[in-house]
């Protein structure tokens, strides 16, 4: 197998706040292969976004600090140790990002054209005229009608879905090797969500880019991702191919996430929810973080020692856990 485009090893990011040290990301490792789609799933606040922001150098420091680890691009440059100058040459050219809220992610004071062609002017030193031409082309590729005129519009003249299309066009305009999509559909209408995901897949295949898709929606991941990384409380709890994580899930958290997807077959039945809340990351977690969750019963084996990762197949790894999920009836009774 060819070398991965991106190798993340033992990434640890903490935020030193007044209320203590928040261990947002602890010892996260994964590889990203060329042209593959990797899904990172988990609840809000489990470290998905911080993982990616750390690699991009977008963590505000202070209070954030990358304590350990490496994120090596092409087996050459460690993103975590690169200078600001080196990072500026990588960001937007080799690695691009799409963000959650297209309403606030575009600068309202600048025309779409100005923002869209900025990566071309910065990284490919194109003239404004040539860049605008490429920009119009890019807008057409993401399905924006009358691109020649609308490229000169301001962001507020676009709808939410259209703005996310602009974001995708802007991220893909330099044909990056890696696209990081941070919950790209969360802020959008359900009807638009599918279109945007399809668009990401289409642009990814056209460019041959690798994609890291951050989401808390397993349903989104299922149709799109080759491999999946499940995170909980800042740590990876399960990773494998989409098939392995969906059909042979072993970690109770992964199973609970799957049960929480509302399916069409259960009309009239109550929906499954995971009881309790994720743990407070500003306090050290000695053992299995999932065992600390209210309503989850553990066998006690990993209460005080961190559970190790176990390999199940060439691609399937899972963190040991002896937690048991409560049944639907028990969850409902709790509520």
């Amino acid at each position, binding site marked *: 197998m060819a070398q991965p485009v991106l190798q993340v090893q033992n990434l640890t990011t903490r935020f030193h706040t007044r209320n203590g040290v928040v261990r947002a990301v602890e010892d996260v490792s994964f590889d990203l292969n060329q042209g593959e789609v990797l899904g990172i799933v988990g609840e809000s606040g489990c470290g998905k976004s911080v993982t990616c922001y750390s690699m*991009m*150098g*977008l963590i505000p420091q202070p209070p954030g600090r990358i304590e350990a680890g490496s994120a090596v691009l092409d087996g050459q440059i460690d993103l975590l140790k690169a200078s*600001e100058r080196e*990072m*500026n*040459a*990588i*960001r*937007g*050219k080799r690695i*691009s*990002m799409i*963000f959650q*809220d297209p309403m*606030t*992610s*575009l*600068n*309202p*004071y*600048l*025309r779409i054209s100005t*923002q869209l062609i*900025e*990566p071309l002017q*910065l*990284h490919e030193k194109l003239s404004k005229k040539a860049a605008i031409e490429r920009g119009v082309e890019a807008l057409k590729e993401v399905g924006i009608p009358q691109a020649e005129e609308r490229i000169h519009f*301001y962001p*507020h003249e676009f709808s939410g879905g259209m703005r996310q299309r602009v*974001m995708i066009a*802007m991220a893909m305009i330099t044909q990056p090797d890696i696209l990081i999509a941070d919950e790209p559909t969360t802020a959008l209408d359900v009807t638009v969500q599918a279109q945007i995901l399809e668009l990401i897949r289409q642009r990814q295949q056209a460019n041959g880019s690798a994609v890291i898709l951050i989401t808390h929606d397993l349903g989104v991941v299922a149709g799109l991702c080759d491999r999946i990384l499940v995170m909980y409380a800042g740590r990876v709890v399960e990773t494998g191919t989409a098939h392995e994580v969906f059909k042979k899930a072993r970690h109770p958290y992964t199973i609970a996430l799957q049960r929480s997807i509302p399916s069409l077959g259960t009309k009239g039945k109550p929906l499954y929810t995971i009881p309790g809340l994720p743990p407070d990351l500003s306090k050290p977690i000695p053992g299995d973080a999932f065992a600390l969750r209210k309503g989850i019963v553990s066998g006690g084996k990993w209460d005080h020692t961190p559970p190790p990762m176990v390999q199940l197949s060439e691609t399937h790894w899972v963190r040991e856990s002896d937690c048991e999920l409560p049944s639907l009836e028990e969850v409902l009774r709790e509520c």
Partner: protein
Amino acid sequence: MFKFILYRLLQTLLVLWVIVTVTFFLVRLAPGDPFSAERSMPSHVKERLMQHYGLDQPAWVQYGNYVSSLLQGDLGPSYTQSRNVNQILAQTFPVSLELGAWALLIALCIGLPVGVVAAVYRNTRLDYVPMSMAMVGICLPTFVLGPLLALFFGVWLNWFNVSGWFGPHDRVLPALTIGLVYAAVIARITRGGMLEILTRDFIRTARAKGVPFHTIIFKHTLRGGLLPVVSYMGPALAGVISGSFVVETIFQIPGLGREFVSSAFNRDYTLVLGTVIVYAALITLANLLVDIVQVLLNPRIRFEDS
């Protein structure tokens, strides 16, 4: 856009008319008249004077006469000076305008960069030191700062004249006195505006595109960050010019501010009205200018007619 400006100018005329009317009757409500001095003059002399200026007629007749001469551009005679109001304004307004312009220039040249630097390097010494100084500057009234500057640079260092308005170097101290106070306010507003923008999501987007730091500040942040400063410029412009009478008194500058205050004390009706008209026109025009600049800076604001 031109429709909008035309509409606003018409509005300004209406505002001016209201102000003239209200002021006209208000000054006449004040006790006394232009010729009541500490040493009273013989009654027959006063009667002749009142008759000469038409002040013995009913108020509405006086008002009609005033407005009709005003429409011909005649602001009337001054009751306390040998010059008429047109002459007084023509001599004093340029002085105040020049002083105000220098003061604003100083305020912007100091306030903007200091505010931007403080926002970019927030919570460091580059933020704390200038911002504490700005706080002092805001709290320091001009009648304290002016004499202090005159004492330091005029009396002790002997660099500038303590008062007067003759050569270019006479502009320095009064302009600094007004300018420094406004610079302090502008610095704080700039810092606030810049901070507001710097924490927005689209700045993160720009960083993710690999935009270098200085481009982020100048291209992505400044436009939005300076909007609060622009809104402040309307009142500031008016304040700098109309509020300069304290400074004009301290430095003995023959400006409009001094005439404004003394005319009110002397019940010099026409001079009060003349200065009020000039100030009102200035303030409404300054606000119109601010509105236009705001539209140019912020694409989400549109002119009312479009």
